């Protein structure tokens, strides 16, 4: 297992390098100077600007700039936010926990929906339950997250007035009340993301279970007298989850995209809304850093998926 993990880690490095090259190429190809803020500021005299360019090495060859940028990124030296006037890494560290909390709980919710519904629908294919689940899943992943968010706000915040629609980081209450308030404001963002993911995963789980449930070993398990419940839970689901893990790992970039939108709708103070406000404020160091963090998160999730394979499918570890 540990050797398998190490090999996976080594495979992740080229992808990280590749992503960083793509990111830097985009930045280098961009017309004008991304660090224009200093250049267009009328208070900065021309010779100071030239000195700054030399100091930051903005006129060096592209390869040199790339190596310097990448090594700075890896060392955690992510620059200085033009808009907030603090270091980018502190800014991101402040925002990251909220994003991870929202994404993590929504994925959990999606899993809690998709697994039981998908498995139950697949064990009774073309039944009424299956058809209803299938239709709801289709509707669920055809509803864009931004529209679900707005519908939720309309219904739960404006019409029923149950839930707050602005996420506040500074809740003054203490003790149980503090947790309660946090939970209340997190319900809608988590539900929007979780329902969307849950809808598409339900279809994956259903088709994966349908593929496995007809195999001979399942018949064998039934023939030796195991209860249907044990057959499904212990024999079918574990094997059916292998392709599901692949599809979920492939969807990770889309999940982060959905998280950005959700954070923007509900004003969740995470890195997604930080990205949007940085773009509106032309804050290049923050934009680059957040994009880089999202790339690292995607790679991390792929690694997690690989570890899950190792656990779900013992054949893999020996390869």
């Amino acid at each position, binding site marked *: 297992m540990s050797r398998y993990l190490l090999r996976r880690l080594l495979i992740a490095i080229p992808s990280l390098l590749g992503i960083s090259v793509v990111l830097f190429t985009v930045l280098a190809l961009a017309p004008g100077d991304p660090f224009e803020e200093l250049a267009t500021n009328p208070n900065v005299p021309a010779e100071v600007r030239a000195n700054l360019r030399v100091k930051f090495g903005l006129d060096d060859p592209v390869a040199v700039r790339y190596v310097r940028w990448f090594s700075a990124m890896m060392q955690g030296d992510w620059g200085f936010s033009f808009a907030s006037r603090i270091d980018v890494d502190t800014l991101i560290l402040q925002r990251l926990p909220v994003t991870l909390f929202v994404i993590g709980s929504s994925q959990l919710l999606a899993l809690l929906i998709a697994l039981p519904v998908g498995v139950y629908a697949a064990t009774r294919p073309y039944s009424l339950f299956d058809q209803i689940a299938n239709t709801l899943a289709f509707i669920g992943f*055809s509803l864009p997250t931004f*529209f679900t968010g707005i519908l939720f706000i309309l219904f739960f915040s404006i019409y029923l007035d149950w839930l707050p629609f602005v996420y506040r980081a500074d809740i003054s209450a203490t003790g149980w009340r503090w947790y309660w308030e946090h939970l209340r404001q997190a319900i809608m963002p988590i539900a929007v993301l979780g329902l969307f993911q849950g809808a598409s995963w339900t279809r994956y789980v259903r088709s994966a279970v349908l593929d496995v449930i007809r195999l001979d070993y399942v018949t064998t398990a039934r023939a030796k007298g195991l209860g249907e419940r044990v057959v499904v839970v212990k024999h079918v689901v574990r094997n059916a989850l292998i392709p599901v893990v692949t599809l979920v790992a492939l969807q990770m970039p889309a999940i982060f995209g959905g998280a950005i939108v959700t954070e923007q709708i509900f004003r969740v103070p995470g890195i997604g809304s930080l990205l*949007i406000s940085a*773009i509106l404020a032309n804050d290049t160091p923050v934009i680059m850093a957040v994009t880089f963090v999202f790339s690292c998160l995607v790679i991390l999730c792929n690694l997690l998926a690989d570890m899950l394979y190792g656990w779900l499918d013992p054949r893999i570890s020996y390869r």
Partner: protein
Amino acid sequence: MGAETWRRFRRHKLALAGALILAVIALAVLFGPLLWRVPINEIDFPAKLQGTSWRHPLGTDDLGQDLLSRMLYGGRISLAVGLAAMLIAVVVGTAMGALAGISRGSVDAALMWITDLFLSLPQLPLLLLIIYLFRDSLKMLVGPEVGVFILIVIVIGGFRWMPVARLVRAQFLSLREKEFVEAARALGATTWRTVWRHILPNSLGPVIVAGTIDVAAAIIAESTLSFLGLGFPPDIPTWGRILFDAKDYLDVAPHWAVIPGAAIFLTVLSINYIGDGLRDALDPRKVM
């Protein structure tokens, strides 16, 4: 193949309904502006934030602009972006997949590595980054509308070709070993001819399905960008942009947000169902 596919497609009732709804939407946005001649930017403050009425069937926004004509105009852009981005994704994906599928060894490995790399890129942040960096210069080059359109279409299409490439490569890997391809090669057909005449037409089934779904995904992507305020400029009312403008008036004018959202949802749902129907219709193994 056409008649048979259509016969099988018709059996999927929801796909047929989807095709019908999409046809209605497409006809409405194509010919609607010719019939409903209220300008999209006629400001009328006394009539702002109104609900349904005879003068404004879908109500008005905060400047008193007619929502029906804005929706019809925006639908043109949304559908055009979806189709154009899908074309780019399909063409690039087919080219990459075909190239990887017929060349063995290092070219195949390199192309697949690039495909996997693109699959693990965080797409929305990169979309936003590219649009942020290139928007202004393209605007100056070809004007705001065309510039943003080209940029958005290229960027969305450029991030959606990977599944197509994988599908085409997989099809090529199995098809190139088939007897009819071997027969063509034995008769002296060049590689180019075997690919163009024999392998490619036979591998298009899954590509058509993926392309259909891509239209929906591209429409969502464009609406997302506009909804974040980073897509088309404010004077071009795409569906996502109308939703973005409406989201601050949810309590006084909910219809303003619900109408464009419902339009996006209906379009995407119909396209997804059409894709589902095509998948069944084009899969010869599926028993109807």
